[in-house]
């Protein structure tokens, strides 16, 4: 009984079971071809990123004379200039604050709302799910002007909270749509057993649902953080004081301010993509595992 219920829960347990199988079907086509295709794809994939990172090690004359070559000699001044500038670190801190708070709020609100949709039965439940699902179709572009006016009335323009709150709101639909199947997949038997043991619905939520849905929660958390770290349109319209800029705005401003200093722009740009890359690489498995629960065949 216990093993069968655990198997039914989504997440890594299932995939581990599948990949841990001793017998595998034979690969009919030679590995070199697969590796070759993979290498070509990766080459195309990484070339622009490599250009940005390597470009930061050049100076501008190298970029004009031989825009496609390797840096020769390598120069570190661009990177050290960015790393010692207070502007970069202020924008970095703003991005961390916005990303962290947004992620925390989206996950907290998303899990609890998904729990209600997945496991309570009440009138208006379908409407609630439909409302959030419809939110997927509302691009922030449509709402940007009125959003700006609402934030202005609330005195939230030029404050990080003015970016965080709309981001939370626009992050909720994806989160809820990914999490609801996760919470629905928790077998009723576990809830019944918890109820027999005298656990209330809320106790069940905190003691069983949160741990069991951890893969989904992590997935949505990572997706939210990366989306927030990268978000451009909303900060572009909400933030006008440079002191409240996040990194994407910082890149744009740096680009227009030092338009002729391409190498410096590339250094600034490549330093600001590192956190999202590190974050994603560390949790890549989680994202793939988490989406499995959401995309059930």
């Amino acid at each position, binding site marked *: 009984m216990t093993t069968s219920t655990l198997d039914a829960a989504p997440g890594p347990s299932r995939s581990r079971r599948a990949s841990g199988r001793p017998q595998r*079907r034979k690969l009919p086509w030679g590995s070199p071809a697969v590796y070759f295709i993979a290498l070509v794809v990766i080459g195309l994939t990484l070339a622009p990123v490599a*250009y940005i990172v390597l470009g930061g090690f050049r100076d501008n004359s190298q970029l004009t004379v031989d825009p496609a070559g390797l840096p020769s000699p390598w120069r570190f001044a661009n990177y050290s200039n960015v790393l010692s500038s207070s502007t970069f670190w202020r924008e970095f801190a703003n991005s961390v604050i916005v990303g962290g708070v947004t992620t925390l709020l989206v996950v907290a609100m998303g899990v609890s709302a998904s729990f209600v949709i997945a496991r309570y039965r009440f009138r208006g439940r379908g409407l609630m799910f439909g409302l959030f699902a419809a939110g997927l179709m509302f691009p922030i572009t*449509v709402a940007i002007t*009125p959003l700006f006016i609402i934030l202005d009335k609330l005195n939230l323009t030029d404050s990080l909270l003015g970016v965080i709150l709309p981001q939370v709101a626009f992050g909720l639909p994806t989160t809820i749509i990914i999490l609801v199947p996760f919470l629905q997949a928790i077998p009723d038997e576990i809830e019944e057993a918890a109820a027999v043991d005298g656990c209330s619905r809320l106790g069940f939520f905190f003691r069983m649902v949160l741990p069991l849905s951890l893969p989904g929660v992590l997935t949505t958390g990572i997706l939210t953080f990366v989306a927030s770290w990268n978000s451009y349109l909303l900060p572009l319209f909400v933030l006008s004081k440079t002191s409240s800029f996040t990194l994407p705005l910082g890149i744009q401003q740096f680009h227009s301010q030092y338009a002729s200093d391409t190498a410096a722009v590339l250094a600034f740009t490549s330093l600001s993509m590192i956190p999202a890359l590190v974050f994603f690489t560390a949790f890549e498995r989680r994202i793939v595992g988490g989406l499995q629960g959401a995309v059930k065949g």
Partner: protein
Amino acid sequence: MSETPQVTSALASSLDTTTVGGGADAVSPPAAVAGRPPRARASRRERLEITLLSGPAIVVFVAFVILPVIAAFYYGFYRWKGYGPPSDFIGLHNYRVILTDPEFHRAVLHNVEIAGLSLLIQGPLAILLALLLNREMRGRSIIRVLVFVPWVVSEVIAGTGLSLMLPVNGAINALLTNLHVFGHVEVQWLGPHLGLWTLMAILTWKYLGFAVILLMAGLQNIPEELYEAASIDGASYWQMQRNITLPLLGPTIRIWAFLSIIGALQLFDLPWIVWGEFNLDRDGVSTMATYMAHYGPRTGLYGYGNAVAVVLFVISLIVALLYQRFVLRRDISGSVTDGGRR
């Protein structure tokens, strides 16, 4: 194993409501024992929990998503520069202007072309790549991470980097020249002729990783037993892919296609950054969203911008509803209507 108790409890509760019927509206004992509250009847305690748990999300969502969208509809009827409350009501005038503006027609056409080409280019590529990366081989996890890199790199970073690579004297042309195959290359990648294709290449580069992630997640859900059975029956690799993988991957493909179409209709960041706001339609590709941002908040025509936003929204909504009605019906039927808990 879990089927039997569920069936009996459902039977018991349905018997309960039909026989005892209108008399007692208290929670029926069999249902209470099974731990399943009867349908559409929430106790006070439950209502409190529902409010507490979903309240914050609903408040934030309504305040910052629903209200602004409704407000966009309202402002769209005004000639309004954004100062003070809108007062110059002009009815459908903004919409008449939008629907007759050739620049907007071109923007819509671009959106449609981008949506169609995304499906045709990214779909097959992503399926092939997902099948390739789903094999057991050394270094697979590293390859997988690297393929997803562009999806993680932000639009601003990608756009800034690419707009520095793509000009006539940029790195791409220099690289092609250095190959000594095409002679001296001076292609206008960002110019009016190639704009759409350059954008498609950028979009494919940027979003292929997401399609691959999604499809690989779908592949994980196909039971291994099917392949084992097929290989015992002597099926070839390609036969298995065509007759097992593709049909079972169908729901995932259809969901990806949905996300891709909606994303294409609402595309903003990359065209805006790569072409620069004022050169969009002349040199590159304007979309409905860049048209809106340019003529809305940027030019100060707030009423007009909001009307464009409404048109964009309505078009997305119609496409989404049609898609759900005709394509996704099989996949999502039951997920909302029958309560999802099976």
